[in-house]
Each structure stands twice: as structure tokens, then as C-alpha cells.
């Protein structure tokens, strides 16, 4: 792993905005404000939004631009203490016991101390996140919290309010400096109010056309200017339809990238229909777009862009 040079957290909202855009994350002022507050007040940031709007990316960008370590905890149903916080290395512990026995030691206290020492402790993400040094606290990303079950959520309450973990055999481990916590959820389940109350909440929405165009410009720099404008305009219109799953920013970037790879400089009906699988992932939605709505939108896009160019 390369050496990290921790930087200080930004002092104003404008600095936060610069920090993000320096790392090619085009954020709106609302997001910069809540991010700044979360860094300033040392509160976890709770990001909710549809899939593919760049929630996880915020944590990555933050870690990268602040020069902090990124610790990621991917949540899933049944996530428990032994895979989220710590686990003992049982096999090694058993060998230790046998070794001590073979050496003829019988002191119970000493053995217990040896067996339950840091040496046999396997650190999982939560424990890892609590070991940040002063001024270099890691970014702790708790990804897709809605996938975990309520029991884990209740456990998180304790971590997020005190930033400490108790390992019964070892004692309490407390963070020197609390980590920068970012929680993301896709809303496949409501998260309990008690947890939300400890965090700063932000709903990450789809970007507006100008911001999305800027995102495409930065993420797919080789894309043709006209193509990017058409792509963004097409997707913005697509989002206004009542589709089962509208494309997110991730899909916009993918699509712009895919079309650039195909050496396209502008959209045409055949290309849209060939590459629609990059944007829409449900058969019903695809069928709807192919049945003419796609053509209609494309026509509108072309008309608007040529009107704007004049």
C-alpha cells in the first residue's frame, strides 16, 4: 500500500466543494454543506438515494483527497459481530493451549492471558476503523446498510455514539480520534429513526443536466462534446418517464464510455437500441423504450440541442 499523507479537514463549505471537485467529484452545494458539517461536527453522514447516484463514490473520493485510509464494511443479511468487529483465531488458540500444556504450565490466569491476547485477535472492519491516530482517522464506509438486519443496526447505534467496542476478554477499545463515518443505503428497507438521529441525513438525488454534463466531461474526457450533450439530455428525459428503474449517474458514465468505444459522435436510433442494455436493466423498461418512446425522446433531444446551438 502506498504511503498516505493525511490532510486536514476543510474549514469552509467552499473548501469542501473544491476538495470534491479536485478529486473529480462534481457535487452540488447541498452535499458539500452536509459533508462539511459532518466533518466539522464529527458526526456520521447518512446518505440515502437510488442505486448509482454516487453515494459510495463520496467515501472513496473523501478518503483519497484527505489522504485517509478507506475501510469498507459491506453489509449483508446476517452480518454479525464475528465478521464485522472481531474474531478470535481459534485454531491458533487451541495450539497455544496444547503447547502450554506440553510445556507443563498449569497457571490458569497466565494461560487465559496468553490465549486471549492481541496476537490471536482478528480485526474486522469496525475494530479496524477505531484505531485511527490523531489527525489521521480513517474513512469508515458502511455500505448498503439496508441489506443488514435490524440486529446489526442496533449494534451500530452503540459504535456510532461512543466510537468504542468492548471485547469481553480484552477490555474496551476506544478510538483516539473517531473515524469519518459514511453510511449509505438504497432504501430497500427503512432504517430506524434512532440510528438516523445520530447522523446527518442527506438524500442524494440525480444531478441536473448541467451537473451531469460536467460529470461526463470529467469521467469520460475522450467523449465527443456533441455526444455527451445528447447522452445527458436523453437520460434526463428518460428519468422523467415512469420506468421501473431509471438509469443513475453510473449508467450515464457507462453509456457515454460505451458509445465512445464504438466511435460514435452522435446518437441515432439504431445505436440507442443496440446499447440500451447499458442504461436499462429491466425487460419491461427496455420494451417500452424500443416501442417508439426511445425514438420520440431522441427526436426531442435532437430538436432541443439544435435549437440551442442556433
Amino acid at each position: 500500500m502506498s504511503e498516505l499523507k493525511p490532510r486536514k479537514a476543510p474549514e469552509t463549505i467552499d473548501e469542501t466543494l473544491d476538495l470534491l471537485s479536485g478529486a473529480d467529484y462534481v457535487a452540488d452545494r447541498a452535499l458539500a454543506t452536509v459533508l462539511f458539517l459532518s466533518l466539522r461536527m464529527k458526526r456520521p453522514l447518512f446518505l440515502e438515494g437510488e442505486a448509482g447516484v454516487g453515494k459510495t463514490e463520496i467515501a472513496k473520493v473523501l478518503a483519497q483527497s484527505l489522504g485517509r485510509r478507506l475501510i469498507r464494511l459491506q453489509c449483508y443479511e446476517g452480518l454479525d459481530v464475528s465478521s464485522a468487529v472481531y474474531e478470535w483465531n481459534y485454531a491458533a488458540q487451541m495450539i497455544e493451549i496444547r503447547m502450554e500444556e506440553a510445556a507443563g504450565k498449569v497457571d490458569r490466569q497466565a494461560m487465559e492471558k496468553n490465549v486471549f491476547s492481541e496476537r490471536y485477535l482478528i480485526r474486522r472492519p469496525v475494530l479496524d476503523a477505531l484505531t485511527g491516530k490523531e489527525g489521521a482517522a480513517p474513512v469508515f464506509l458502511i455500505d448498503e446498510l439496508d441489506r443488514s438486519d435490524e440486529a446489526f443496526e442496533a449494534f451500530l447505534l452503540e459504535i456510532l455514539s461512543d466510537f468504542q467496542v468492548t471485547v469481553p476478554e480484552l477490555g474496551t477499545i476506544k478510538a483516539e480520534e473517531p473515524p469519518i463515518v459514511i453510511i449509505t443505503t438504497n432504501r430497500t428497507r427503512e432504517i430506524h429513526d434512532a440510528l438516523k438521529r445520530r447522523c446527518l441525513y442527506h438524500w442524494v438525488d440525480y444531478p441536473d443536466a448541467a451537473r451531469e454534463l460536467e460529470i461526463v466531461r470529467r469521467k469520460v474526457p475522450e467523449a465527443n462534446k456533441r455526444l455527451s450533450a445528447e447522452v445527458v439530455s436523453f437520460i434526463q428525459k428518460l428519468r422523467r418517464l415512469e420506468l421501473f428503474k431509471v438509469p443513475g449517474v453510473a449508467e450515464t458514465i457507462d453509456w457515454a464510455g460505451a458509445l465512445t468505444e464504438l466511435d460514435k459522435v452522435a446518437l441515432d436510433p439504431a445505436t440507442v437500441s443496440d446499447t440500451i442494455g447499458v442504461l436499462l436493466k429491466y425487460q419491461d423498461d427496455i420494451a417500452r423504450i424500443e416501442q417508439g418512446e426511445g425514438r420520440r425522446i431522441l427526436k426531442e433531444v435532437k430538436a432541443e440541442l439544435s435549437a440551442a446551438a442556433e
Partner: protein
Amino acid sequence: MAVAPLTSASPDGRIADNIVYFARTLRKAGMRVGPASVKDAIEAVLAAGIGSRDDFYWTLHAVLVSRHEDHATFDEAFRLFWKSRELLEKLLAMFSPVAPDNRERQKPRAAESRVADALFEGHRKHQPLQEIPEIEMDARLTVSGTELLRGKDFAQMTAAELADAKQAISRLSLPFDMVRTRRYRADPAGRRIDPRAMMRLASRTGGAVILPRFRSPRELHPPLVVLADISGSMSQYTRIFLHFLHALTEKRRRVHTFVFGTRLTNLTRQMRHRDPDEALAEASSVVKDWSGGTRIGDTLAEFNRLWSRRVLGQGAVVLLITDGLERDDTAGLSQEMERLQKSCRRLIWLNPLLRFDGFEARARGVRAMLPHVDEFRAVHNLNALSDLSASLDRPLSRDVDPRLWLEPRAA
């Protein structure tokens, strides 16, 4: 840094006062804003050292809003409360490091009265709507074509009914009602080794003996999502199944309640009220389409699009209570049912119309829906809640197979 001059600029703590008032306004508008978040809001405003109306807006938003649904309420309240531009500008000036405003001290009452105005305006706005007199109409087996919006008043639940309901629910066991989780519990008869417990035990004896310990996966009720029809043709049962839903919500974790007639309403939060009468009163004020027409296809489409991904996770069982009498075209209905069935673990259709012995799946809506349900259950005599749970309780047998109803029946 913009934060420094603040302590000198706000000896009378007017910002704090205003934020407290603002929070109170939000609370009146139905948002959940506790004292802790008010304290946080003040801290946040101090930390951000606001420079513009926009920053101030988002600073308060970050702390006071904790649900996406509340965004609109916040937005409206913010506009109303801080509508006096002068007030906000004055507050902003107090934050400004260059111009600590002294004028502001000469007329504190003016600002306060404006705030009070904003407060009362908000208050008036949220007064309960006038009750609409109820017109009772028995519309069984009819499908009304117009969207009727009307209120509904439920008779209070008697103590006997309450006890009855609780008992019925506690006896109720839905089929396929347990899912295995990836968590474990200690179990002497389990089939998996529990190394953590073994080490703990071994250290008790100083490691002399390491005895095996076992565990097995824990089982849980999956989330239950209820979609109940409250249209005119179902109106005489509405009270019973609302009681049922309330008792169910109290008894089990993770119950989501939706009702639909011509539109879809989420009643989950209302049903969480401990008192059944209060819960029903709240439900009655939220739902606008009691005893109106039915648009099963449209409302299911709305459910699929907006809610299915939010509530159908983790192996949810869907309980659909409707008579299946669809007003609109049934082409979309079949598709939406298919999607619903494919996004949940089990789809159970409970149909009160089945109490008539001669029921046949002739209505177009019923025929469109039947192929896409896992179970089709009848309520033969829906006069009390116990009948409802009895019908859900019955073990899986051949007569719940939906295909049975699609085949032409031998007389």
C-alpha cells in the same frame, strides 16, 4: 473563519431561539424533530458559519430532516418561517465577521412577532380538515366507476374485541412463516460447531478439556407486507381487517401496511400506534379514498414502482386482501401481478368474496390475477377477526391452489 465573532454577536441567543421556534413549527407540521436535533441544529449553524440563505437552508436540512419524504415539508416550512427576508438577513449579518449588527437590538420585538405570525400561519394550515359526513352504502359485488373521496368513521373497538383480536393473532401461524437467517444461536442439538463458546469453556478449565459446543441457525418471521382493498365493494370488511392489521403490527416485527382503492396509501406508521382506536382514527384521516372505486392494476403498478424495492427485501411475504373486481382494463393488471409475485417470496391472496358458495373465477380481474398468486384463500364468513386469521391459519392444502379456480368446475 466565520465562526469566531459569533459569541460576541449573539449574547441574547436570538438565533438559537429562532431555531427552536422553527423546530417547533416542523414538529407541528408532522416531522419528527426531537430536542436533541434542535441542539444539533444550533451547533451545526455555529459550525457552518452560514454565509448565504442557501447554506443556512442546507445546514438546517442536514440536521433536521431524516427522511426523504420530509423534504417537502421542510422546504415549505423554511420558506414560510424565514420568509421575512429581513429576519434572515439580520441573522446572517450576525454571523458576518465584518459587520456585527447593532441596529438589530433596537427592534427585537418586530422580528419576534413576525416569527409568531409565521408560526401561526403554519399552525392554521395544518388544522385537520373538516369531517365529511359519511354516506353508508352497501356496494358488495358492484364496481363503482368514479373515484369517490370520502372520510370514514370507525366504531371504537370494544375491550372484548381487542382481547379477541390479540388472541387470534397470537395463535395465527402463516404458512411458510419462518426464514432461516445467517445468525446462530447456541443449540445443544445443533449441527454446527461453535468455536467461540468452546474456547470460553476451555479457558474455564484452564484448557485441560476442550469440549464441543454446537449452534444452529436462528429462524425469524420474514417481513409481512399487506395490501388491503378498501373500495366500496369491500367496505363492510374494512373495519375488521384494519383491526387485524393493527393487532398484527403490534404482535410482529416488520409489518408494512398499504391500503388501496383508487390510490395507494401507506399506513405503516399510523398502524404503529399502540391504541387501536387512535391508530384507526389516524388511518382514517390519511386515507382519502374510503369506499370509492377500485383500480387494482394502477395501484399495484404504483406499489411495484415506488415501494416494492423498499419493503419487499429479506424474503417478504405479501398478503393481498381484495375481491379482485377491477374497474379498469385488466391487461396491465396481469403484468403487475406477475411482477409482484416475482419480487416477493410468497404471494397470498385473501378473497372475502369466496364466502358465497357459488363463486367462480369469472370476473376478468380475478382471471387476470389468479395465475400469479401462490395461494388463494377464502374467508367464508368474515364477521370477526378470528375468521380472518382462521382462514390464514389453515394448513396448505389443495384448495388454496389458485389453478383450481381457473379450471372449469365440475358441478
